[in-house]
């Protein structure tokens, strides 16, 4: 999965021609560590349909502020460069798959 930063956000998310999912985490957040492999697996399943990124919130506070992220993990889905939906906290693979499918 590609890494997103405050510097690369605009180019990677705003200008993407396909939906973009961003997994916002911090290194030492246990629910983030549990969610990470699930999102990683889904990134392979949706290759070519949805672009997946992960972003460390502690290292990239500017983008976190932009989307009012207060808890982590937060997962944001962008369609046409705009926020389509987001969820907070740990979810199952099936829940995330259904969430993506209902938003793209």
């Amino acid at each position, binding site marked *: 999965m590609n890494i997103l930063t405050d510097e690369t956000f605009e180019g990677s998310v705003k200008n993407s021609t396909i939906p973009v999912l961003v997994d916002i985490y*911090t290194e030492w*957040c246990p629910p983030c*560590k549990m969610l990470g492999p699930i999102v990683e697996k889904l990134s392979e399943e949706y290759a070519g349909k949805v672009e997946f990124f992960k972003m460390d919130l502690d290292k990239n506070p500017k983008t976190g502020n932009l989307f009012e992220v207060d808890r*982590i993990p937060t997962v944001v889905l962008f369609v046409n460069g705009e926020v389509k939906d987001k969820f907070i906290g740990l979810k199952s693979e099936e829940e995330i798959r259904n969430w993506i499918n209902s938003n793209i």
Partner: protein
Amino acid sequence: MEKLIKISEEYAESKGYKLNPNRAIVEGVIKGLLVRKENFGEIYCPCRKMSGNKEEDKKIICPCIYHEDEIAKDGHCFCNLFVK
């Protein structure tokens, strides 16, 4: 790490909670708290964004101001350290 686990355990017992039975999760949260203490001076919750405003961030020093409501509602705090 063991000292903070013990303190958290004693706090949980005093409130009628328990620490998460999954030791890996407990150690993960405690490690996160210690890393944030080292980097930012307090044991700020690793599952919440820091604002950078010390007064505002007092709310997320573990145990944070949200944990009681979260445990009542979900059975565990958002970061999964304390459980009912």
